Every structure is written in structure tokens, then in C-alpha cells.
């Protein structure tokens, strides 16, 4: 016992010697740095950068400038425009809430509000369900796992306009490949008018949006799944939990933070979507697929009423603000 204690004491001594030597070396370096700092300070005639509270602002400034230039300025300009009767090439005059009153009188606009909520709601649920299912499948071990995971991202990587053009062909009234299959399998007598019927047109744009968004959900949720410790599942196995119990009591709660962030992000992007509808239907037939963004584009650019167009897109703001507040509140609660 004794020699052991002795050796431990020895070791402690050694360690403390080493620490001392380190300390001395730090003490030795310290004044040198201090000196250099003083010299610099002398040159700059100011020590502001030395102070943490000022340095922090300096470091954060580039990001703030970018945010102000590209987010805040356009936003404030958008708010201002929505309160004016600005048209392309003409000075706008302040008209208060006139634009908002006008668009609320338009049935096209009211229909657009309804369309946007249906579109966002249904597409998001589809993306969530299929994205989660895909993530669970991809989280297993199988051959060519990496290849499959990578290729799954394709719909999300291809520029939306290009992939949507391909969908446009698949929905084509005359040459739809879906119709060809449905008719040749004997399921239907004649093909469906995918983009010509108000309900089917909405179904079509939702399908394309979901198809494009599922990989984003899947890959984000897959990342989330991989952070869940296998120990939890092993413990559950020992307790005799079934796969649904494991999913419900382990996977879902552990995935919740990632899931919510992905969900909120997707709602925002879907709500403000433009490309899918613009390429497939331009809001038709009879405005059954117009979203805020496509209607705002039509009014602001095709008829040059920038003020009214800005007012239409600003209608998105309260809803998106609500979504963001929920998101921030959730993140804080987690912390």
C-alpha cells in the first residue's frame, strides 16, 4: 500500500511541477503580449478593438449590413410601396390603406388566400408524412446506402423551374404519361384534364410541391435520427418494447426539435411559393391555383401596379410572423 501512495505522491509532484513550468511560461509570455498590445494601441491611438463589447459589434457588422441591405431595406420599401399608388415609371403618392381595402374587395384575392392555405396545409402534411417515412427507411442499413441517400436529394437539387417543366409535360392535356398509363391499364376510359379542372389543378401543383420538398424533410430528419443514441433502443428492446412503441416513445420525442424547425421552415417556403404554380398554371384555371406570390407578380409586373402588388405580398406577413414567433418561442423553451 505504502509504495503505491508514494508513487502517487510522486506523480502529483511531477504534474504540479509541470503545471508550474507552464504557468511560468505563461507569465513569461504574458508581459510580452501586453507590451505588443500597448505598442499597437499607441499606433492606433485607440484601444476600442480591445474592448469586447465594441469588438463584438465590429465582427457582427458585416452580417448586419447584409441583413439591412437585402432583407430590411426591401421589407421597409415593400411596406412603404403598399401604402402608395406607385406604378412602374411613376412616383407613388401615399394613399394609406387604400390598396389593402381594394384587394380585400377582390374575389380573386379572397380565392387566393384560400388557395394558399389549402396548398400550404396539404403539401406540408404530405411532405412531413412521406419525408419522415423516407428518413426512417434510409436510416436502416442496406446495400448502396450512400448512393441511394445521395440520389434521393435529386428532386431538391434540380432547379425547380426545370423539374416543373418536366411535370408540365407529364400533366399535358394531350400527351400526359399519367393518362396514358391510366387508360392503358383500363382504370379510366379517357384521360384526366390535370391542369384544366380547378380541383385537379390544385392537386397537381400540390403533388409537384410535395415531390420537390420530401427530400428536404427526409435528409434533415435522417440527420436527426442519426443523433439518437442506439442505447435507448437497446434499453427499450430489453424492456420488450415493440417497434411502434419505440417510434412513439423514443424516435418521435428525440426528433421533435429537428422536426419542428424543418416543419416551420417548410411552411414558410411553401406559403411563399411561386415557381411551381407559375410554370404549371399561372394561377389558372379561373384563379383556382393562384398563390400570394403569383398574384402579386401578376398585379405588380404584368399590370405595373407596384403598390397593389406589394400590398398583396404583404398579406403573407402576419401569418409568416406568427409562424416565426412560434418557432422562436419553441427554441427558447428548449434552451
Amino acid at each position, binding site marked *: 500500500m505504502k509504495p503505491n501512495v508514494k508513487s502517487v505522491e510522486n506523480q502529483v509532484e511531477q504534474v504540479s511541477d509541470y503545471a508550474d513550468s507552464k504557468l511560468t511560461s505563461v507569465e513569461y509570455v504574458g508581459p510580452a503580449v501586453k507590451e505588443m498590445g500597448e505598442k499597437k494601441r499607441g499606433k492606433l491611438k485607440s484601444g476600442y478593438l480591445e474592448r469586447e463589447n465594441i469588438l463584438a459589434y465590429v465582427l457582427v457588422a458585416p452580417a448586419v449590413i447584409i441583413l439591412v441591405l437585402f432583407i430590411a431595406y426591401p421589407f421597409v420599401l415593400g411596406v412603404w410601396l403598399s401604402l402608395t399608388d406607385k406604378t*412602374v415609371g411613376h412616383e407613388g403618392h401615399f394613399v394609406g390603406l387604400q390598396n389593402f381595402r381594394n384587394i380585400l*374587395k377582390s374575389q*380573386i384575392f379572397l380565392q387566393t388566400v384560400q388557395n394558399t392555405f389549402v396548398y400550404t396545409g396539404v403539401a406540408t402534411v404530405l411532405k412531413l408524412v412521406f419525408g419522415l417515412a423516407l428518413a426512417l427507411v434510409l436510416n436502416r442499413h442496406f446495400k448502396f446506402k450512400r448512393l441511394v441517400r445521395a440520389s434521393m436529394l435529386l428532386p431538391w437539387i434540380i432547379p425547380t423551374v426545370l423539374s416543373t417543366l418536366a411535370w408540365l409535360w407529364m400533366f399535358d392535356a394531350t400527351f400526359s404519361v399519367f393518362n396514358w398509363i391510366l387508360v392503358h391499364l383500363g382504370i379510366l376510359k379517357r384521360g384526366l384534364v390535370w391542369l*384544366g379542372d380547378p380541383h385537379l389543378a390544385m392537386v397537381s401543383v400540390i403533388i409537384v410541391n410535395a415531390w420537390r420538398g420530401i427530400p428536404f424533410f427526409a435528409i434533415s430528419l435522417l440527420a436527426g435520427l442519426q443523433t439518437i443514441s442506439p442505447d435507448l433502443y437497446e434499453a427499450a428492446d430489453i424492456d420488450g418494447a415493440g417497434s411502434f412503441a419505440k417510434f412513439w416513445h423514443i424516435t418521435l420525442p428525440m426528433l421533435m426539435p429537428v422536426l419542428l424547425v424543418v416543419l416551420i421552415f417548410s411552411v414558410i417556403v411553401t406559403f411563399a411559393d411561386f415557381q411551381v404554380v407559375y410554370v404549371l398554371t399561372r394561377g389558372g384555371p*379561373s384563379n383556382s391555383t393562384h398563390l400570394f406570390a403569383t398574384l402579386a407578380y401578376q398585379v405588380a409586373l404584368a399590370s405595373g401596379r407596384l403598390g397593389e402588388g406589394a400590398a398583396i405580398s404583404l398579406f403573407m406577413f402576419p401569418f409568416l410572423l406568427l409562424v416565426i414567433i412560434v418557432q422562436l418561442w419553441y427554441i427558447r423553451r428548449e434552451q
Partner: protein
Amino acid sequence: MGDINIQANYEQEVKEVTYPGIEGGLTRRQFIKTAGLIAGAALTEGVLVTTTPKIAAPAIIKGTKLHLLQWSNFVPPADDEIRRQAAEWGKQMGVEVTIETINANDLQARIASAIESGTGPDIVQMLHNWPYLYASGCVDVDDVAEKVEKMYGGFYKQIRDVSFVEGRYKAVPYHIVGAAMTYREDWFKEVGAEKFPDNWDEYRKVGKMLKDKGHPFGQTFGHTFGDAPAFAYPYLWSFGGKEVEEDGKTVALDSKETLQAVEFIVALWKDVFDETGLSWDDTSNNRAFLSEQISCTLNGASIYFVAKKQYPELAKRINHAVMPAGPAGRFHYHVTFEHAIMKYSNNVEAAKEFILFLMDKPNFYKWFEIAEGYSVAPGPDHENHPLWQKDPRMLAFKDIGKLGKAIGYPAPPTRSASEALSKYIIVDVFARAIQGESPKKAIEWGASELRNVYKS
């Protein structure tokens, strides 16, 4: 051989005019006029003028740059010809000319941002009534437009109305892509129609027989910029319906004439049209026609051109006709093209010269021949062009420009008319009724939307 000789003579003649002209103080404008006359004379003799006389550039524009933005023509060789002419003019004048072509649907976004930022192309090609929308950003071009007007024997009403904004030309009328009924002559004859139906009742009768035989007519009522309004507006006008009174303020859609038109379209839809049409864009009817799914559709000459190249047998069975007349007459709505010079441009003089060069008859008609009549001149002058003798199947397009009216008719084609067009209100009145809404309700909906648009 004979042609070549005449060509050589022409060039010699031009040379003789050129040198004394410039030395003798002949202005460039006078010169172009003279050259134009000679060229015109040469043309009537059936000679195609391929070279343009060399002339000295006005000193002010030498060494400058000029940028023209236009749509990608549906007849690509026509764009090549514009580029060739631009290069030729640029070389003569010492001006660096850029011709930029983009999708017609993207032009408006470019124009709006150019005007708002005060920078961009010097000349922008406008479509429809855009000179009205962007008037405040465009230079007055009365001098150029009036010269062109004289050259082409006046302007067709539709293209004049959209370019002439509150007493000034804000753009120079350029050309018109005529829309005509493109139909299968062979199938029409099979059901006893030797000629294309002259009025809507006959149209319905023939159409019903053809649809019963599995050859429906095709017409889009979707949100697409060309074919949908090109049918819906003149159809409405031909019944005496109108969106607004002549004052351009009082919404007048809710009328018994409109009701008649809407009720009739519902019947047409059932009896005559291919029911997939609600989803069509501007290319769908081309495909449906070429795949022999439909027997008639309103379109530019592009279906026929594609058939001539790819399906010559089918091309022989295609013919064109003007739209049927309604109780109030016969109307058309064509896509018109205008050249506008932007106010921010610091090369207005060169821009004017260049537009005049493109509109100079030898140049314009060279381009016109390459497009084979797909686009017609802004005025009736081209109606005597030998091209129309070449292909009788194209004859319907010859004077179709005369039947065109601008949107908003009978009111001026104002910003509100444009907004009504871009919101597809008139198209959707028909689309809603076709989808089962009562015609009265569909019209009420349209009138209320129009009141919203015309309020300011």
C-alpha cells in the same frame, strides 16, 4: 441570271446615288427615302434586295453602343436576320449593337426593373398595349413613327392605338403576329363545309358535326398570354359585349350582349370544343392540332409552318380563315409589337436611326419574307407584297390586321385594360361558365372584378 443582273444594276444605281448624295449635301433621311423608293421599285419587279446601301454614319453616334431587347421570335431565322441587319448597320455606323432576345413572358419584369433603376437596354420591344403601361419611361418618337406610318400606307388601327398614348407616339409600331382560324380543310369538306363558317351559328353547326366524328375544335380558356385572350376578347366584341364604355371608366360588362356570348360559349363548349382546353397553354393547341386531335383552333401561322417542315402531307390539308362574325360584326385581337426608346438611354439618336433602319422597307421585307408572313407589317403596304401570291393557304393573314382592335375596346387601351387582361378577367368569365357556374353569376363576378380594376 436575269435576277443577278438586275441586282447588279441596283447596286450600281445605289452607288451612283450614294456618293453624290453625301457630297452634295443630301441628308441621310432623304437618302434613305430615295434608297427606299428604289428598293420598293426593285421589289415590285420581283427582285429581293439583299444588300443595303453603304452610307456614312452621322458623327454623333459613331463609336457609341446600342442595346435592343426583344422576345425570342417563334420563327428563329427571323431573329438571325435581325442580328445580321444589326451587325450590318453597326458596321456602317460605327455603333456596337447588341440584340438580346428573351422569352416574351419575361419581358415585362425586365422593363419594369429597367425603368425603375434607370438603366438597361436603349430600345425595348413592347407587346400588346405596353406603351401605355410604360409611357412615362419612354421617349416620344412621333418623328420616327410618322415616317414609318407614311412608308407603310398608314398603321392598322390596333397597333396605332396601343402606340399612340395621349397624343404622342410612345413607341414605333413594328409588326403584328396575326391570329387566324387554323383548320383542317379536308375534314371540313367531309361534313360538307366547303368554306370556313362565316358566323358563330354556322361555326357551331359545323363544329358539332366534326366533334361527333371525333374531330372537335380546340380552344384554350386557361391562363396563357396569347391564345386565350386572342379568342375571348374578339368573341365577346362580336356579340356586342364590352368590358367598359368608351369613357374608359364605366364598367359595361353586365349586358344582355355579354350574357348572349357567355350562354353561347357554354353551348359551344359542349357541342364543339375539346374539353381538355381549359388547361391549354399557347403551345398545347399546336400539339393537339399536329397530332390530329382537333380540327380547328385560333392561332398564329406557327402550326402550319411546323406542318410544312415536318408533316408536309398534313400541311396540304391545313387552311386559315378569319374569325366568324357575330351579331355586332367581325373582330380580331392580335399580338402587336412596338419599339420603344427608353428615357434613361443616352443614345436616343442612334436608337431612332436604328429603328428607321429596321423599318426601312428593303430590310423589313427581307425579314418579313424570312418569317414567311408569320408577322405582318404595321400598315397595309405589305398587302401588295409578292409573298402573298406564293402560298394561298396564308392568304387569310394578308389583311387580318384590319380586323384587330386593342384591348379595352371601345375605350382606349389603358393601364386598367391591361390589368384586366393580365388578371384574365374576360377569359375567366367564360371559363367559369364553362365549368358550370351560371352565366349570370360569371358575368357578375367579372363585372365586380372589373369595377375593382377600373376604379382608379
